[in-house]
């Protein structure tokens, strides 16, 4: 079963990492590095990417007439932004939650787990075989 595991962050959090100590930054990067490697070694990683900061996001709208409108995104009302995602192929929803829990506990300031909310969504797959 494939799942998309999404890490969201508030703009404060992106500001956050720029206010950590060298040791905090190093520890966080190594955690992410090891986390990705474990998923690959477990044969569960399908695809993962980090996204650029939301400053680079643009919203495009097109009503089918004239030129598309490209505006600075994200929506002003949004509190949280997608910052990275993993697509994993794992045995059960429980395992997907386990992976998400680990992503959530990435170390932040002074090594304390961040507890970032991580969204887990099953990916719509091929038709189920008839039982």
């Amino acid at each position, binding site marked *: 079963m494939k799942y998309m595991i999404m890490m969201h962050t508030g703009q404060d959090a992106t500001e956050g*990492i*720029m206010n*950590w100590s*060298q040791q905090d930054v190093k520890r966080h990067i190594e955690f992410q*590095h090891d986390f990705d*490697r474990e998923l690959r070694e477990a044969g569960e990683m399908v695809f993962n990417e*980090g996204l*650029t*900061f939301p400053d*680079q996001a643009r919203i495009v709208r097109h009503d089918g007439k004239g030129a598309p409108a490209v505006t600075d995104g994200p929506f002003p009302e949004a509190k949280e932004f997608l910052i990275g995602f993993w697509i994993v192929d794992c045995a059960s929803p429980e395992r997907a939650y386990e992976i998400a829990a680990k992503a959530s506990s990435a170390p932040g300031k002074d090594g304390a787990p961040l507890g970032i909310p991580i969204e887990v969504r099953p990916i719509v797959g091929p038709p189920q075989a008839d039982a």
Partner: protein
Amino acid sequence: MADRSIEDLLRELAPRVLAVVARKYRDFDTAEDAVQEALLAAHLHWPADGLPDSPEAWLIATASRRLINMWRGDDARRRREEQDWTPVTATAADESAADRDDTLQLLFMCTHAALTSSSAIALTLRAVGGLTTAEIAAAFLVPEATMGQRISRAKQRIHASGEPFRLPSGADWRPRLDAVLHVLYLIFSEGYASSGGGELVRTDLSKEAIRLAREVHRLLPHEPEVAGLLALMLLNDARRDARTGPHGELIPLPEQDRARWDRAAIAEGVELVSAALRQRAVGPYQLQAAIAAVHDEAAAAAETDWPQILALYGVLERIQPNPMVTLNRAVALAMVDGPRAGLKVLDTLDGPLAGHHRLAAVRGHLLEMAGDRPGAIEQLRAAAVGTPSAPELRYLLTEIARLRDGD
């Protein structure tokens, strides 16, 4: 011959076989598919049956049979309507034509102006480099079906352009060679940029680009820019092992452990670029190689001959003005005349490189040199927000933390 692996032999023969078959049947697109199938057949048969007497003739014959079969297939009618498909009777002279012309013709074809650079790269790697579509897809981290489509559309474009399969002549020659060198440089850069991306197994594009540049240099030994490009690749690739740490983190040039640089590659690069420069036809690749050589020949970062690098960037900027070259010259100038001089040059780039993450990163670096820590942090933050590169982002975040910690 016997001590070389079949793999190497096939990759060496692939462009020659393709050139012969493409010329014989005047159909580059189908010839390319047919040669791929012949290579696959060789992969399957040769290890078990041993090498044929003439591997090249075997591949040409097999690919020709495959091509005829493809022509007889469903789309044969369409093809016959499109072109006169009578096979050209190959003369003996044709068959034994120097492989020089074959490989060069292929390179000129694959870097045709009608192609986007990503298509030209893919086609060059497949037709001249002899890589499989799967290997190229893995190298660029895209699905194999996507890469297959990219390659086949590139071949259709060439077919539609009606370009005859022959070497460009006269006035066409120089720009076409420039296009070939540019594509090889892009392949190298892609490998160079991605080698810091962790432990994902990717086809080694840098090594592939070097192999292809060596081939072009062998075919065109008197072209100084070809030698310059090969030297540039070798002199940059020599630093590969020192450029990244255990977690794929970027280690900038001044902080690299120079004991880990590849001395043999440096010696070869230096010799190549020195010989090229003696031909008195200086060009951008030779200049960039010369700059890389100055860095590589310094026993320690502090011993770098910055005045020499500054002079070389000055020449490069004159013959090929470009904001990125100016950016690098600003760094060299800061090392020679102090950070304020460099920052003055950066101010001239606020128009052409407005909001560019590299400009912010360099400005942050020079502000730190000038003792303006808060200014440096502000610039590095702008660079971190703007960079599209994961290793560079991690590097910048670490640098920001270092400045804030007051180290």
